[in-house]
């Protein structure tokens, strides 16, 4: 932690690291959805792992150390393994290169353009209230203290949600669904 703080202390190094991680995140994100070399879902899952790991790097640059660890543990460790399990289980053939429908392209461009317009307008119109030299640290102690005092009720509700999800998954994966 001390070493990371020292590394993040200067102003030039984190900025360069931000651009490196951001570019890597976006590059791998593009390769998740549109890989020119392979249509195999396994490749997409592998690039999703890289996206998530470089995003954890962005979290570290934002001093959210706990969330960076959780991101790698839960996403790269659990979610992607689940994805890979299901892909291997289903034994999918490679997606044939069907003709991309005009409708898909038009709908995609319209929705992205709409979001872009909203994004630019809100970025210009609102005062983001951003501080130039933030001091907050998202360490385990600070987050844990908040989680078990102010947010203890949502925490318990989430545990119930996980239980419900587990029961649902067991029911869904039974052989004879009634």
């Amino acid at each position, binding site marked *: 932690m001390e070493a990371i703080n020292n590394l993040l202390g200067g102003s030039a190094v984190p900025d360069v690291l931000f651009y490196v991680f951001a570019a890597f995140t976006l590059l791998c994100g593009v390769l998740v959805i549109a890989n020119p070399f392979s249509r195999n879902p396994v490749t997409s899952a592998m690039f999703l792992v890289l996206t998530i790991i470089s995003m954890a790097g962005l979290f570290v640059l934002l001093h959210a150390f706990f969330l960076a660890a959780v991101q790698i543990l839960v996403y790269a460790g659990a979610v992607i393994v689940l994805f890979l399990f299901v892909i291997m289980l289903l034994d999918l053939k490679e997606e044939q290169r069907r003709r991309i429908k005009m409708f898909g392209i038009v709908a995609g461009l319209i929705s992205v353009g709409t979001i872009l317009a909203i994004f630019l307008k809100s970025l210009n119109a609102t005062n983001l209230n951003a501080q*130039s030299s933030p001091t907050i640290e998202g360490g385990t102690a600070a987050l844990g203290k908040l989680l078990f005092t102010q947010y203890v009720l949502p925490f318990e509700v989430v545990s119930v949600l996980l239980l419900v999800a587990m029961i649902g998954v067991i029911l869904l994966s039974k052989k004879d669904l009634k």
Partner: protein
Amino acid sequence: MHVGLEQYLTVSFLLFSLGLLGVIMRRNLLVIYMSLELMLNAANLALVAFSRFNNNLNGQILVFFIITVAAAEVSVGLALIVALYRKRQTAHVEDLTSMKL
């Protein structure tokens, strides 16, 4: 150029657009699901950036809950895909049109 909130929000926006394009243009259910994860991650990045630059930890707590709920959602969704595959032997959205009017 000094990296501030705007740069992080731009990355988040671009990642969200990528996820949206993936959901709309890809046909494989599993890849669509991965694109959904990408969109969730983009929202997480925006929340963490806002939390950092507003000196307020509440955003990071929200991201923690989002990650938990996303994990539950993925498990249920993948179980649904497996159940669907057992019945229909396909994971392509174009072959799953029985609800079409």
